[in-house]
């Protein structure tokens, strides 16, 4: 796999990690009421505590029954410790369940590596995380594009 692919997968894990960190974001996102055009940053742990690990943003966040949040125009960017882009994830909407450690949506998900060399799309997704294990389910119509050969010649 080309370096872009490696970067992509590392970045994808970073996205997942950041959604794990989203349990902390749950306090940043509006638990009650309605928010528009919000953006929340997650930082690396020391010694890179000055660097943004991820930036989660949305056009709108609405509270749902059961402590859920309905996030519109979900967008997440992750960054390396040197500040360069790692992965960007976009979905039209996302239901965020911080207490269950789950994020899911039937909407279209687009994940792009920081250098643009890898794209993964899916109609619907579900992200589940536990203490030491996380998984991303790509529900339907998965399409991955690597801008170079997957296997080196």
């Amino acid at each position: 796999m080309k370096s872009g692919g490696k970067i992509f997968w590392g970045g994808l894990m970073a996205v997942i990690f950041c959604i794990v960190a989203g349990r902390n974001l749950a306090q940043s996102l509006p638990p009650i009421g309605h928010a528009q055009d919000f953006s929340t940053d997650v930082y690396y742990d020391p010694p890179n505590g000055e660097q943004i690990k991820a930036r989660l943003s949305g056009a709108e966040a609405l509270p749902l029954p059961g402590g859920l949040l309905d996030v519109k125009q979900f967008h997440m960017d992750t960054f390396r410790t040197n500040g360069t882009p790692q992965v960007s994830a976009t979905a039209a909407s996302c239901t965020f369940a911080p207490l269950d450690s789950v994020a899911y949506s039937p909407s279209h998900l687009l994940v792009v590596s920081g250098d643009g060399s890898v794209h993964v799309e899916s109609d619907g997704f579900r992200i589940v995380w536990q203490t030491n294990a996380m998984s991303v389910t790509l529900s339907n119509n998965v399409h991955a594009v690597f801008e170079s050969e997957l296997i080196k010649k």
Partner: protein
Amino acid sequence: MKTILILLLAICAGASWSQTGSALPKTAPGQKTEIWSKSGYYDNNTREQVFLGNVRVVDPKIILTCEQLTVNVPETGQRLSRLTAETNVVIDFVDEKSKDQKYHVTAAMAVYSYSVVNSVTNETITFTGLLGKPPLVDTAQGTISSEPLVWDRAAGRFIFKDYHIQLNQSLTDTNGSSPLKL
């Protein structure tokens, strides 16, 4: 068991490719690889990305279809070392080391493996079949079944075991005489 090694070039030398599988894309080296599937998942505990259902991979030199494709995601800085395609595996590919010879392989499973041991590169794709239905490789020159069937990418050759060869060439030439000179 006795393992027999055959250089595919020795079998297929000198003949041009006739269509034995789906059309290969006319693409230049360095172009993108695309994967489609019905669904998929990624598990960071096992570091596996799995594509499920009607999986189709299109690479400048390879077209792969199967029902499940598992990519073992490498650690940062490392090369992709393992891919596993399962169920109804069909691969059309070009081996540049064999003068751009084209192949059509069908199997129940295909495992790509890459490793470097003592500075020696090992890069193979091992095809296996089901009981009574071994992997098949088709070329313009013939069909070979073998269980397993190993494509040694590093060496640019196939390794056959308990193989059976069916040549497409006639033993007589166009004027009816045998081309064999005994």
